[in-house]
Each structure stands twice: as C-alpha cells, then as structure tokens.
C-alpha cells in the first residue's frame, strides 16, 4: 500500500472522484493550473481538464455561491477556500444558503457541496493564516463538519463528503499536511511515512462521517481531540505516562455521541482540547454533552485546553498554541481530583 502525506491523500481522493463521477468539479483560488497554494489539487487540471478543475476570482462568496448553484442542479462541486481565515466573505452563502436549501424548499432543492479549507495554526502565519473557525460551522443547522487528522482518514472522509447528499465543511489541519506535529516548535518535522495512518489504499474507500476513532485505548482519563491536537494528546500522554484514552472525533457534526459516552463512562474523567478560542468553542459543546450524559460517572471536573480568547498571535504563537505540557498539566490535575 502506498504511503501518502495528507496533501497527497486529499489529491488522491479528488482524483478518484473526478474520475468516477462526471458531476464532480473542483475550483477555487489558484486551484487550477498551479494546483493550490498547498498543492492539494496539483496535476488535477492536467488529468481531468479545465472544465472540471479551474481557477476562480478572489471572491469566496462567489466560490461558495457558484457551488450552491451547481450542487442544486445535482452536480458535486468540491470547492477550496485558500485558508479558513478567508471563508468569511463566503459565510453568508454557507450558513444561510448551502445549509438551509434542502429544508426551506422542503427537499425540492438540495446542496451536495463540499467546502475544503486549511485550518489551524502552528505555521507562523499570524492572525490571518491560523484560525480554527469550526464552531462557527457547527453552530449552523444543516451543515456537516469533518476534521481528518491523518492521510487515511483524509482520503476516506473526503470521498464520503463528496458522496454525501448534504453540504460538508471539510477542515484540513494544515500543520499536519506533511507530517504529524507533536508540539516541538523548534524541533523535528516528522514525516508521515513512519505512521500506519499514512498507508492509503488505492481507489475508492470511505470513512463514515459521524464516527470517531480511538487513537489510543486507555483507562484513566478520556481526551477528546481532533486535527493536530490528536498528536499533541499523544505527546502529552508520552510525557506524563498517564493511561489516557485518546478519542479522535474526526467528525464534529454529526458527533459520535456513543463513542464519547462509552469512553467517559469507563474512565470517569475527561479533558477536551482544541486550538480555537475557548468561549463558545466546540469544547463547550463537548463538555456539555459529557456532563449531561455522564454526570454520575465523573470523578473530576471536565477541563478545556484551548487557544486563548485573543486574536491568534505571531511572535507569541507558542504561548498560544495548546502545548503537550499544558495538556499534561490538565491531565495530572484531573487525576488528582
């Protein structure tokens, strides 16, 4: 089985779907000839032609709006927003149009649209290349929101997203495009090749949207993570030696409620981690879910490790980005309670 980076896995998913469904079209800024600023669509225009893979003007509301129009006719557009930080001009089309078309037309019109966007920090990108806006999407009824954390899931989830009958926001944690990231800002950049999740089967396969994965089974405490934070969790466990169960949510909406409840009922403790700002972040939703479903099993308060409630900094990036040390301290605190 070939080993792939996340970028290659995403490109492969698009290639597979472009080949087997003539309704699939791929477009966005710099996506066509050049193949995207992160190269996720490199070569696709050459293989599938300019009518299937093309460049757009710099207008995110146009990118999403064109996608809604095409999807409503039954095509399967998979569009790219260059950075999640630039989706805001398209947010009207996403939250008010794509998300609600099925419901408001009583299913006369639907919107099988996929909107891909790189998300998250850790790349010295400052406040306009580092944001994690997932909670803005999970707050919208009618959207699905997925966040793969490795090449295998990226390909399987993207194919599932393209085949999904409803709009899917596909968030790509850019820090781990080329390899897992364990929070050592100045140190090594480990590639994907040594990780089993980088073994990506050829051709079509799917990872079901709405299903979490247990990345590390454990009995002491449950860590709920997604995207880059899955690796921060692995590293915190390595540093503290605490027998934590790491759950990679993979899909935020719909959420794998059963997997979360099963784990927390077993461990009785829970820490939530994400890069996004804390207040009204997705961690608040997770903490509420756990509290409602597992209250009588809890032995310690649920903790949230998140980005601070400030704009994403440049110089102070590593004081902002949730580190394995911060998560480790939370794990130790939870174990003492």
């Amino acid at each position, binding site marked *: 089985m070939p080993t792939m980076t996340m970028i290659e896995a995403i490109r492969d998913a698009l290639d597979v779907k472009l080949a087997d469904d003539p309704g699939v079209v791929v477009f966005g800024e710099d996506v066509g000839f050049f193949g995207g600023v992160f190269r996720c669509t490199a070569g696709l225009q050459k293989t599938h032609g300019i009518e299937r893979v093309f460049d757009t003007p710099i207008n995110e509301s146009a990118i999403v709006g064109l996608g809604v129009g095409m999807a409503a006719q039954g095509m399967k557009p998979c569009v790219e927003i260059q950075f999640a930080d630039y989706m805001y001009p398209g947010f009207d089309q996403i939250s008010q149009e794509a998300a609600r078309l099925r419901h408001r037309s009583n299913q006369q019109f639907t919107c099988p649209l996929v909107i891909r966007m790189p998300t998250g920090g850790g790349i010295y990108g400052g406040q306009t290349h580092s944001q994690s806006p997932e909670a803005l999407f999970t707050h919208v009824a009618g959207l699905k929101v997925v966040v793969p954390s490795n090449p295998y899931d990226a390909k399987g989830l993207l194919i599932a997203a393209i085949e999904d009958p409803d709009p899917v926001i596909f968030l790509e944690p850019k820090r781990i495009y080329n390899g897992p990231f364990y929070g050592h800002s100045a140190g090594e950049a480990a590639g994907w090749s040594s990780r089993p999740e980088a073994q990506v089967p050829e051709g079509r396969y799917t990872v079901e949207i709405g299903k979490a994965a247990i990345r590390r089974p454990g009995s002491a405490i449950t860590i709920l993570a997604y995207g880059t934070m899955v690796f921060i969790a692995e590293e915190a466990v390595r540093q503290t030696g605490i027998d934590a169960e790491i759950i990679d949510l993979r899909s935020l909406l719909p959420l794998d409620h059963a997997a979360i409840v099963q784990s927390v009922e077993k461990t009785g403790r829970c820490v939530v981690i994400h890069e996004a700002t804390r207040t009204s972040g997705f961690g608040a939703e997770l903490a509420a879910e756990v509290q409602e479903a597992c209250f009588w099993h809890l032995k310690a308060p649920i903790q949230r490790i998140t980005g601070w409630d400030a704009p994403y900094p*440049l110089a*102070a990036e590593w004081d902002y980005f949730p580190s394995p040390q911060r998560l480790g301290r939370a794990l130790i605190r939870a174990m003492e309670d």
Partner: protein
Amino acid sequence: MVVGEAKLNFPGPPARPGGAPDFSLIEVPEPGVLPVPPLDIDAEASEPFAKGMIRVLDDAGNAVGPWADGMGSLDPAHCVQGLIDMLRMRIIDQRLLNAQRQGKSSFYLQCTGEEAIGCAFQRQLSPGDMNFPTYRQQSLLIAADYPLAALMGQIYANDCDPTEGRQLPTMHSSRDYGFFSISGNLGTQYVQAVGWAMANALSRNGQIAAGWIGDGATASNDFHSALLTASVYQPPVILNIVNNQWAISTCTAIAAGASRTYAERARGYGVPALRVDGNDYLAVAAVSRWAVERTRSGLGPVAIEWFTYRTAAHSTSDDPNAYRPRDEAAMWPLGDPVERLKAHLIGRGIWSEQQHAQKQAELFDEIVTTQKEVEQHGTFVNPRPFSPAKIFEGVYAHLPDHLRRQRQEMGY
C-alpha cells in the same frame, strides 16, 4: 442565424512556463497624448482616461506632454528625491528578502518593480491623510520617511516593532505616518477607506483617504461596496487599483473577465477613473498630485488604475516559475521604474552614473547599519520574546475578567 451551444470560458495568461513571454495583447499608448482634465471631471468624461493610459516618460527618457509640465512634477529636487526613495525601497526589499532566506524572519513579500507607485503617491499627501494599503505598499512608508528601525522590527517581530509582533511580516501599521493597520483579509479595507473619507468630510478636517487594492482583489465584494458608496456619498477618497498582472498564480484576466480595464469598471459605478503607467515615476507623481487636489477640493472621489508588473514572487512562500515564463518580468513593456527615472535625470544633466553609484552605496550602508542594530533586538532564529501576557493586551480597552483568569492560567 448561427446556432451554438453554451460553453464556458476559462481565461488564462498568454504564456506559461517553457513558453515565450507574450505581451502582444497589451496596448502601450504613446506618452504625452492624454490631456490634463479639469479637476471636476465626471465619470462620463473620464472615458478616454479610463481606456487609455497616462504616460509622461518616453523610451528615450524624455518627459513629454501636458502632464509633464502641467503638474510641476519636473522640479529637480522632487525628481531626485523620487529616485532616492525608490532606490531605498529596492535595497530594503532585497535586504529583508535575504534575511528571510537566512531564517531571520518567517516571511517576506517584495514590491519590486512597483516602487514608483507608492513612492510618488505618498510624496503628494499631507500630514493627516490616511492610506489603507495592502501588504505590497511598503513604498508608502518609505516615502513618508517612516523610521527604518520600526519597519524592520516589524519584519523580525522584535521589540523595535511598534505592533509588538502581533502580525505577519509586512503587515505594518502606523497611524502617525498615515498607514492604516493592514488586514490579511483581502479587500476589506477598500470600503473602510471610503468610511474614513466620509468621516473626514463630516468633520470638515480637510483630510483625504486613499484606498489600495490589487488587481486580483478587485474581485472581492468589498471592492464593489467601496466604489458604490464612493459614488453615492462623494467623499474625499482616492481609490487606487494596483494592476500588477498577477494574483499569486492567477493572471489578471481571471479578475478582469471580459471587461477591458479596471478603471473602466470603476467608471461603471459613476466614479471618474484614470489609468496610468505605474512604472513611470513622473506620471504617477503628476496624476497623484492632480487626484489629491481634486479630492481635497471637495470635487468627489476618483479611481486610479496603476498599470505595472509584479517582478518578484508573490511572497517567500511562492515560486512563480511554476506558473509563468521565467523571463517574463524582463520583457515587461513598461520597463523598470528606477531605470526609467534614472535615465530621465541623467538626460537632463541633474544626475550621473557616478552620483547614482555613490548614492546606492550610501543607502546600502545606512540600511545595513540599521538592519544590524535591529537584528540585535531579536530575529526569528534568535528570538527575544515578548512577555506572553501581551497576547491579552488590546483585545479590549479594559481587560475583562475572563481574560484575566486566562492570563493567570497561562502563568502571568
């Protein structure tokens, strides 16, 4: 009757890597043919200016036509100042690019080939006027005599940076030097410039505003919002469009569509518009002076398309050889702004090769000296961090309780 079938159009550049650069579709009008219009020109009457191109310097370096002498931009001291500004800008860009390559900063972005636009425009503004620049208008700061240490400190994100490492390198901010805080989100600030200018008019302060946008970002919603509101309220704003032919890897046709010029697009909103040779310092200076006079006199907004070419990569994260011919920049029909002004000044006998070389060496020394001092305050490879507690400063005027608690959680 011809019966056809709907088919989509996908614009692209005339040449790709491996091909020969081709600028045959670009019309370069003779310099000196367009008159200086009355200051109160309306959109309708500006049609020839929006379709043509105001140029002053001819190929031999002579300043020709009504714009050359009409606007007083031929004053020798002013011309030499312009050349020095552009030389400084170019050396600074080169030095900061090298610093990034050495790992001393995380990112850089040059304005090479576009120096004339910001340098000449800024010299026509007055204190109190406000630019709303993009990341490629550092030349405005140079011609505003912005302290070099502050400019470089921002690139190194050290304590010489007045914004204390908050933003990506090149996202400067200087209220005192008429440079509005840059946002990385394209287009947003174009309409803010109109709002600022409306406030100028409402408070009768005599100041004007200047919005800046790239050709690619004219596609953004806010470009259209800005032109519409400028047309409706007639505030004292100059809406600049820097058409450097590229937006990262996409050629300008992707933003222009089937329309002919960006100036024409502005005119469609009822805003008078001019198109100008942006690599001609004297044309930029003359048109800027005219536009400043018009807006400050209460005659309403004006849009200017500066026609130029992005000689360098989009940024240090980009490799243009992947999407355009390697030697395209060298073939750009409007030449290089520094070389053109230099030839003009030498032709007039107010500058010489020797003076040029000497000035260049002087500027280089001055810039390198400052750069070394600024690097002592910390670089990307050798950072001297701010207190992490700074993250919480300025989120609000007063630190709310939840941020105080988060700061404590952080350990400060």
